[in-house]
């Protein structure tokens, strides 16, 4: 009797929680889909596209760092791989950018495994430092590789608008919907991982690698899986970026600062949580734009001042990020 009452109360709680969450989700979906109807300025559209792109990158990083605890500070490698693969294939061999996007993701996965297989022997700080070093090596090689344009970068030829050519000049909102779709797919991927067996394995590895190993979790294999998924999404983001901006150079797609930005967005929003990357990006990217408008763009770096302070503050006082603030209050 009592058990039934408890079960009933639990069921009711779950329903109520779903009710609130469901309403929020539907609202979000309506706003996201209807966004182009409210916004006319290209600046705001561009801002929205970049928020969606960075939310994708942050979510992808979150799968590896947040769930699995492997802190990569070299994710720009996969972003640049995606951007350059689709573009170089297109320019040198005339390959369709959509196929290039898939090829880029495949190459990024291969690179991620080549990096991960040896580097996953390193733990914690050691792994983080190794990924910085790899990121810097790749960045320098790209600058000095003439075949892909070297330091001058690559400019993609402008084609007629079409979905097939992945270029839209008349209505740039198609880019918005592609970025939205990418973000949603990545989000759903993270959601699926979080509630499936893989998610539990990854979190077990994060909490205590030795314990996870001793209960029979193939630690390296699951780290590699997390790395592959993460690299693939980041690479697709890179290909999207290339098609959207139509220009790339090593300093814009391979820099350490990009790898770091992705971490900052996730950690401030809430690392290891499903909503953290999205919340962090949606707050921090506009914040950075705001300070740039207020203080002028060249060299003042006020946005980084705030990013750095927030990052330290969150790490010390609020390790679950902004999302943690909300869930903790609701849990009480």
């Amino acid at each position, binding site marked *: 009797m009592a058990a039934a009452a408890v079960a009933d109360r639990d069921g009711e709680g779950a329903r109520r929680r779903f009710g609130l969450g469901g309403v929020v989700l539907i609202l979000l979906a309506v706003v996201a889909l209807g966004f182009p109807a409210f916004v006319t300025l290209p600046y705001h559209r561009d801002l929205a596209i970049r928020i969606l792109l960075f939310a994708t990158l942050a979510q992808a990083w979150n799968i590896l760092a947040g769930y699995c605890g492997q802190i990569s500070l070299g994710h720009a490698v996969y972003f640049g791989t995606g951007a350059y693969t689709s573009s170089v294939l297109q320019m040198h061999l005339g390959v369709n950018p959509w196929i290039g996007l898939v090829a880029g993701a495949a190459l990024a996965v291969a690179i991620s495994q080549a990096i991960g297989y040896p580097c996953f022997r390193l733990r914690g700080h050691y792994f983080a430092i190794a990924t910085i*070093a790899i990121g810097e090596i790749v960045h320098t090689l790209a600058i000095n590789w003439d075949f892909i344009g070297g330091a001058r970068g690559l400019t993609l030829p402008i084609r007629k608008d079409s979905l097939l050519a992945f270029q839209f000049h008349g209505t740039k909102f198609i880019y918005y919907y592609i970025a939205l779709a990418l973000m949603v797919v990545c989000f759903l991927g993270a959601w699926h991982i979080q509630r499936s067996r893989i998610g539990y394995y990854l979190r077990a590895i994060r909490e205590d690698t030795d314990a996870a190993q001793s209960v029979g979790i193939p630690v390296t294999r699951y780290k590699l899986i997390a790395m592959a998924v993460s690299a693939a999404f980041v690479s697709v983001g890179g290909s999207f970026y290339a098609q959207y901006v139509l220009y790339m150079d090593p300093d814009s797609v391979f820099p350490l600062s990009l790898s770091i930005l992705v971490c900052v967005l996730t950690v401030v929003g809430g690392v290891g949580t499903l909503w953290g990357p999205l919340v962090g990006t949606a707050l921090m990217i506009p914040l950075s734009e705001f300070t740039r408008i207020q203080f002028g763009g060249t060299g003042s770096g006020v946005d980084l001042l705030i990013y750095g302070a927030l990052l*330290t503050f969150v*790490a010390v006082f609020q390790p679950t990020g902004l999302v943690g603030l909300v869930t903790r209050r609701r849990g009480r």
Partner: protein
Amino acid sequence: MFTVPTADVLIQGIISGLLMGCIYALIAAGLSLIFGLMEIVNFAHGEFLMLAMYTAFWMYTLFALDPLLSVPICGGVLFVLGVVTHKGIIRRILGAPMLAQIFATFGLGIFLRAAAQFLWTPDFRQVSEPWVQGPVRLFGVSVGLPQLVSALASLLAFGLLIWFITKTEAGAALEATAQDRQAASLMGINTERMFTLGWGISSACVGVAGAFLASFFYVFPYVGSLFGLLAFVTVALGGFGSIPGSLVAGIMIGVIEVLAGLFIAPAFKYVAVFAIYLVVVLIRPQGLFGKF
């Protein structure tokens, strides 16, 4: 792709690599000390160096104090910065997950870099007329005098550091805390004070290195990124927590950098450094002298 330098150039290069390596070693020693003590990597280490260089630069610009005379000032200022960092941030994250430990100091680094850029603009600045400047001829090889002085001073500071750790009572307490925090605390050592002291000394090391660097290297907000990255690599290569390891690794890196610049191309000198670091840690994850 490969170019072969003449013997003269080669000897010259190796010597300047050795000198630079001594400075790398001093910067890395501080990082290694902290890690040995409490298993925390200070990702703001390079930015600490940048602040030391700016301290020396402003002392020169405002009070006409040569960087060599600012060495104790930079050491002192950075000692205080290290203590404040420990009291304000590090003390609170000692038992925290890896992620919080990494991003607490990482955020501090981003903050300090942006603060320097905000306050002092991204301009490259230079101490225009330092006491020691220009090259000297030594056994037929031309050597930069500031580099030579800095390297010798770094070795001296390194010797002092090792003397302090191995020969003094405070150093023994520091070492005991590094080996076993709990046992040290049972022996009546105030471990919290040791951590504070460790952070002070670690930062003072970069303070000294920064003052010397300022006499021959440009000062700008991002100068810490490169030196910081090299310091991480040096410490990881030498073995985290091993102070002699950071000396050997620092000198190795100084020489590799020059040789790669001579034999391959200057653009690839850090690629070579990072590649050799990766090869070593993949074979020996604990680094050359690390105990794990």
